[in-house]
């Protein structure tokens, strides 16, 4: 427990070494001086001669001279100078022993081989030899160079080398071969088929080193061969965290594409779901099932991908973070996407270029999902030192985020920006204000007034932009704005920017009826300056003239004709064209015909207001994070992200055939025989190793120890581990998990991140009965092996037999059923004349009717004669809905039988009274349910939980402070206690001081939400939100009691 000392760092250590090096330095300086002088002499000669000297040096017998020559040659290459004529002299050194010299020769070869193909062939044999070198490093670099020589003649040699390297023992060489595949493919696309075979083989590779490179090769050579991925999908997901960062980016983007072809959309149709929920809420469960809208259940593989990529949001590599963000954007259910927000905002602290790309992506995201970034609005505030493109992007995002609540803050911020010295940015801000004004009607007037004030700004671009924006705004709101138009007319003389002048003229024309006096005057001024105006202004002048002519021909007839005459002889054909058209339209003559009548309707037609929208509006057609998205142009090689399939393709394609190393051991054993017991032991072991399942795993291991204490074998894993130290246990668990998953690779650094087992393992069958009948096994080892074998059977069986949707259902419901089982007395054998009955709640959904609570009754005959016709008689209250068990014809002495029944308690703890009858007697018994048993667990995400909790406030909330026996209790212990009392599901929580549990009442399906907020020391705040307030208070009491024991 050493406290860290506060020290100022002094990292200039190793004084001695410095001294020594100083002395050396001096000696070296003298020597190198001599060398330099020598070279200087050489350098001073002409360049042709210099090449001769280099040749001479290369041919000398001294390694150091050769090396020096090569260094200078590489220097020439680096500077982009031509050194090709030295090829023959250089290539001779390819077999040099000196590794640095050799590498420099490689650099040279790769650069010039294409130009000197014949000579390059001379070096090939050297590489072929090196490919067989015992040193993996040399093998790899030989392959790298060989594959980089772009000489078509050696394609067969390359092909052979790649195939061999793909089977190399060294993962590094295999990685190199994956790179070589791409090189060969670009050199000779004809080889595609053969290369795909190699890719297929390398995709099976379990090394993290190879994974990224081979997926890259896949993307480049055969991105459409999705079928190659199926079998490797789960492996890639599980390896992902350990792959090097560049590989992660490539794999994630490939998996994004893959997932979009294989899974169905997690995005619910908003209307259909919302409606069904409210509409059917009061109805029974059965009806819900009958509706056409099947509830969406995510494919476990889909979930696996989302779960395994999430930790990578914490990567230091910005490209990895971005790729996870885009994966969530394109694949995750809508409510889960927001977990990427924080990480994206973090990237904004990075380099300028990173900011640029990230802001572009946020801009696209923020159009569709304002809520995601609104809390981080301030992170997008502009600093005067930002680059212009960064500023504009931030502005874009702020505009997208604007809503009624924050608009005043944003406008205040914009006011600062408008004054910016960066005029391009100021202009963009005015555009942004315009967009806010149209989108949020409350502030339209404020914005308009602000913009009018800007009209007197000294800067021309600002004024021009304001005019353009005002024009657009007035068009959307053509009410009482004649004042503004008048004001603009006054400013007209001072405005020189053509676009702004044109906009004012258009406004005059459009609303000339509102400013009847001013408009003709403006036209008069324009007539004077017409010839000197820009084309765009001329066109608007002609328009204005035409409109005024129609409305106020008395005042403007002459002016219009004058302008039309000027336009007729203009240099620009557009203007001549327009003039001719307008003249025919407005001035009636014999030729003009029918159109003339409609002139007013044509020119003064009400025009639809322009929509001011983001330039990022349509960017989402490109996958986020791509080059295409950044440029808003389809880049070459861009792979379209396809739409979700309507029906999910076959999921079983991703199942992996597991090669079992110990199959022979158990081949002889009868499959049926071991099936049942082994199932439990496997599950027990699995529960042990499954670190995630927390309390359940502990419970189940306890259970198994208890129940199989006589044998002590079926749960060998748990027993052994419990006696060992904790760390040992962890290791063991890890190991077992590895074995269970049939991973042959050695334990990797996987513990850096949580390793998540493939989803099918999470499936625990509901039809597992009590563990009692697990029979003893003599051989731990064997049990273990059998278990692995069995696991596969279970896997395959589950996958074959159960529908995909059911699998997930089970996951949702059954997990808590491993909690401790409390048994209650129903009938004592003394009062029951030998018949005793006990019951417990198995916490499974009742098979008979969903609104019933399942109860298991164990009937034992402890008398000395057999009992006959055991059945249920009268019940009280009569309305009580009980599903009785079938009459038991005969129960022998000392025998016992377990029967299940269902009771509908209607969400009350009122006891169910009934009569247990035999052929001779009747006994009144009652089942008193604990409130926690009237629930069934429900799985939900944290966000949903909080959302639902928000709906159940006030009267529906019960809260109390509870005290626990010990402080800082682990979350497992808490979950365990809560689950022992109530049949609820654990909601994963991102805050460690919050524990959340969710359930529904069995009968009415009302939500019950339990929140435990840990406070200082041992106290905690327990809150229950549910509309069943009576249940809440009872549950609160029970939980409080249970938690006091933690």
């Amino acid at each position, binding site marked *: 427990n050493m406290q860290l000392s506060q020290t100022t*760092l002094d990292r200039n250590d190793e004084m001695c070494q410095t001294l020594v090096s100083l002395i050396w330095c001096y000696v*070296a300086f003298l020597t190198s001086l001599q060398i330099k002088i020598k070279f200087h002499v050489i350098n001073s000669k002409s360049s042709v001669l210099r090449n001769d000297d280099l040749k001479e040096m290369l041919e000398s017998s001294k390694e150091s001279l050769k090396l020096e020559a090569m260094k200078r040659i590489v220097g020439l290459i680096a500077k982009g100078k031509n050194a090709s004529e030295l090829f023959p002299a250089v290539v001779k050194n390819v077999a040099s022993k000196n590794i640095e010299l050799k590498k420099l020769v490689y650099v040279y070869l790769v650069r010039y081989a294409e130009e000197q193909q014949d000579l390059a062939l001379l070096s090939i044999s050297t590489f072929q030899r090196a490919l067989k070198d015992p040193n993996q490093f040399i093998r790899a670099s030989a392959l790298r160079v060989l594959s980089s020589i772009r000489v078509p003649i050696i394609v067969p040699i390359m092909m052979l080398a790649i195939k061999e390297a793909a089977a190399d023992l060294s993962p590094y060489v295999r990685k190199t071969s994956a790179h070589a595949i791409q090189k060969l493919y670009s050199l000779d696309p004809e080889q595609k088929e053969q290369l795909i075979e190699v890719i297929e083989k390398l995709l099976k590779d379990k090394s993290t080193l190879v994974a990224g490179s081979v997926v890259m090769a896949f993307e480049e050579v055969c991105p459409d061969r999705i079928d190659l991925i199926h079998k490797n999908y789960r492996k890639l997901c599980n390896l992902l965290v350990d792959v090097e960062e560049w590989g992660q980016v490539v794999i994630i*983007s490939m998996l994004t594409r893959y997932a979009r072809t294989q899974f169905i959309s997690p995005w619910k149709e908003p209307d259909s779901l919302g409606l069904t929920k409210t509409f059917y809420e009061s109805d029974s469960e059965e009806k819900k099932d009958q509706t056409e809208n099947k509830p969406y259940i995510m494919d476990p593989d889909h979930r696996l991908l989302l779960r395994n990529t999430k930790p990578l949001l914490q990567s230091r590599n910005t490209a990895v973070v971005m790729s996870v963000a885009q994966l969530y954007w394109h694949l995750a259910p809508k409510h889960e996407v927001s977990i990427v927000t924080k990480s994206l905002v973090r990237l904004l602290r990075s380099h300028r270029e*990173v900011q640029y790309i990230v802001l572009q992506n946020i801009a696209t995201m923020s159009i569709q999902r304002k809520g995601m970034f609104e809390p981080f609005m301030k992170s997008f505030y502009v600093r005067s030192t930002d680059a212009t493109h960064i500023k504009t992007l931030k502005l874009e995002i702020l505009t997208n985020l604007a809503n009624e609540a924050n608009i005043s803050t944003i406008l205040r911020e914009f006011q600062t920006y408008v004054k910016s*010295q960066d005029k391009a940015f100021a202009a963009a801000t005015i555009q942004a204000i315009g967009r806010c004004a149209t989108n949020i009607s409350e502030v339209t007037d404020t914005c308009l007034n602000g913009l009018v004030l800007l009209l007197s700004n000294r800067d021309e671009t600002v004024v021009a932009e304001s005019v353009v924006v005002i024009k657009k705004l007035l068009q959307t709101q053509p009410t009482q704005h004649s004042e503004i138009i008048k004001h603009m007319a006054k400013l007209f003389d001072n405005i020189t920017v053509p676009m702004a002048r044109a906009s004012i003229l258009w406004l005059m024309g459009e609303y000339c009826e509102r400013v009847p006096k001013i408009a003709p005057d403006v036209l008069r001024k324009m007539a004077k300056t017409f010839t000197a105006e820009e084309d765009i202004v001329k066109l608007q002048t002609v328009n204005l003239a035409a409109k005024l002519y129609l409305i106020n021909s008395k005042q403007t007839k002459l002016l219009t004709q004058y302008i039309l005459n000027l336009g007729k002889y203009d240099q620009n054909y557009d203007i001549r064209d327009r003039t001719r058209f307008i003249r025919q339209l407005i001035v009636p003559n014999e030729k003009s015909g029918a159109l003339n009548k409609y002139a007013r309707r044509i020119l003064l037609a009400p025009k639809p207001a322009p929509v001011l929208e983001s330039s990022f509006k349509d960017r989402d057609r490109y996958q986020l994070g791509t080059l295409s998205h950044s440029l808003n*142009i389809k880049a070459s090689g861009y792979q379209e992200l396809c739409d979700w399939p309507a029906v999910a393709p076959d999921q079983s394609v991703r199942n992996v055939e597991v090669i079992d190393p110990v199959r022979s051991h158990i081949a002889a054993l009868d499959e049926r025989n071991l099936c049942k017991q082994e199932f439990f032991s496997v599950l027990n072991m699995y529960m042990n190793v499954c670190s995630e399942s927390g309390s359940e795993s502990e419970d189940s291991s306890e259970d198994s120890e208890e129940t199989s204490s006589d044998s002590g074998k079926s749960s060998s894993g748990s027993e052994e581990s419990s006696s060992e130290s904790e760390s040992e246990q962890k290791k063991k668990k890890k190991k077992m998990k590895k074995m269970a998953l049939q991973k042959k690779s050695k334990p990797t650094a996987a513990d850096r991140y*949580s390793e998540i087992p493939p989803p099918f393992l999470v499936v625990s069958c509901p039809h597992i009965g009590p563990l009692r009948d697990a029979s003893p096994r003599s051989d731990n080892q064997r049990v273990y092996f059998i278990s692995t074998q069995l696991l596969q059977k279970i896997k395959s069986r589950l996958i074959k037999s159960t529908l995909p949707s059911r699998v997930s259902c089970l996951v949702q419901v059954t997990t808590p059923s491993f909690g401790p089982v409390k048994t209650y007395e129903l009938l004592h054998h003394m009062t029951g004349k030998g018949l005793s009955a006990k019951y417990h709640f198995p916490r499974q959904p009742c098979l008979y009717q969903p609104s019933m609570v399942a109860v298991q009754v164990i009937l034992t005959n402890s008398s000395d004669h057999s009992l006959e016709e055991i059945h249920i008689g009268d019940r009280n209250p009569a309305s009580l809905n009980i599903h009785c068990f079938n009459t038991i014809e005969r129960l022998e002495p000392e025998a016992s039988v377990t029967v299940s029944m269902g009771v509908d308690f209607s969400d009350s703890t009122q006891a169910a009274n009934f009569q247990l009858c035999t052929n001779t007697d009747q006994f009144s018994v009652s089942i008193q349910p604990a409130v926690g048993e009237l629930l069934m667990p429900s799985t939900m995400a944290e966000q949903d939980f909080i959302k639902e909790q928000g709906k159940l406030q006030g009267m529906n909330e019960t809260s109390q402070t509870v005290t626990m026996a010990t402080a800082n209790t682990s979350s497992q212990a808490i979950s365990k206690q809560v689950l022992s009392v109530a049949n609820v599901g654990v909601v994963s929580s991102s805050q460690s001081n919050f524990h959340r549990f969710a359930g529904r009442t069995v009968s009415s399906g009302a939500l019950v939400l339990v929140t435990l907020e840990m406070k200082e020391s041992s106290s905690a705040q327990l809150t229950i939100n549910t509309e069943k307030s009576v249940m809440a208070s009872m549950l609160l009491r029970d939980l409080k009691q249970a938690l006091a024991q933690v």
Partner: protein
Amino acid sequence: MIHSLFLINQSGDIFLEKHWKSVIGRSVCDYFFEAKEKAVDPENVAPVLQTPHHYLISILRGKLFFLSVIQTEVPPLFVIEFLHRVADTFQDYFGDCSEGVIKDNLVTVYELLEEMLDNGFPLATESNVLKEMIRPPTILRSVVNTLTGGSNVGDTLPTGQLSNIPWRRAGVKYTNNEAYFDVIEEIDAILDKSGTTVCAEIQGVIEACVRLTGMPDLTLSFMNPRLLDDVSFHPCVRFKRWESERVLSFIPPDGNFTLMTYHVSSQNLVAIPVYVKQNISFFETGPCGRLDITIGPKQTMGKTVEGLMVTIHMPKAVLSANLTATQGNYSYDLATKVLVWDIGKLNPQKLPNLRGSLSMQAGVPRPEENPSLNIELKIQQLAISGLKVSRLDMYGEKYKPFKGVKYVTKAGKFQVRT
């Protein structure tokens, strides 16, 4: 992926080119030069450009452009991140990433580029791995090499490349085992005219310098890890431990590295260490303006503010500044229009003040906006967020290392609007 790389200096000369696939002519850079011309300020060049046959992705580091040529779709951040990694590696190897240094070490640079990419796909970017393959130049080594004809290039595959901990090589040995951690926090803030905080947040980074023998497994824990809102880690950190226990558990790389970066939520109130009283005005009549700035301590937690510096980007119209500073020196660069006032230590008894007049170009209208002040400062021995390292434990090795933690608070993007 990455087809070619060109290194371009400030004046637009290409001084290094490297091709990983077939050779692409230099003329492709012309599109970039065009964009650079248009942007005026090198900062404003868009990082991603399109040309008829290629895409150009560039970064600006120091005064150098790293320009990469791309032919097909690739995540732009992938390339940008990689280019920065290249620049980082140069910095790591040569202590600097400038044109001169790169030209001096051209061969090593070329060898590095050769190792870092294969066929345009990153191969070895981990500094520890690279250093085993290509040894960084030191004076001593270059002497030995010249005398013996030895080389800078390793001839075996670095162990790190193959192991599951690529960031650390095997067989590290030190006589003095030590582990130092620097907790550096930067305050990003915008203050408005009246001194109220518009926005403020804290970005922190833990830089480590670990020189430990063997394969140590370290655990670093904090007194108050809840403060941290968002984190990113060096790949060595075990994420799962952080998730469950909020401790940093890792096998460290050898030498200097960034262990983690973090963000302290903007929801928390951020302490602003200094206040600024300023008055900058440009007169409508007469070609002059006035400037008066005073800086004083605000929330410094009893520590001294050091390295105080104010930078102002003046409007183009300001010709010169005639000011007097009660403490420190000021300089005004006529070409870039940047006023720098280097104050040094902040003395709470005698607040530093800078005042005087600004002369303006005649006939040019008064600037619309006053320039904002960028403030730099440093507070030793303090992490402004209150983050504290509670302990460092080492497992896996027997010796007792020397451990140290240092806290520094700096101003990040700290801007005062005027």
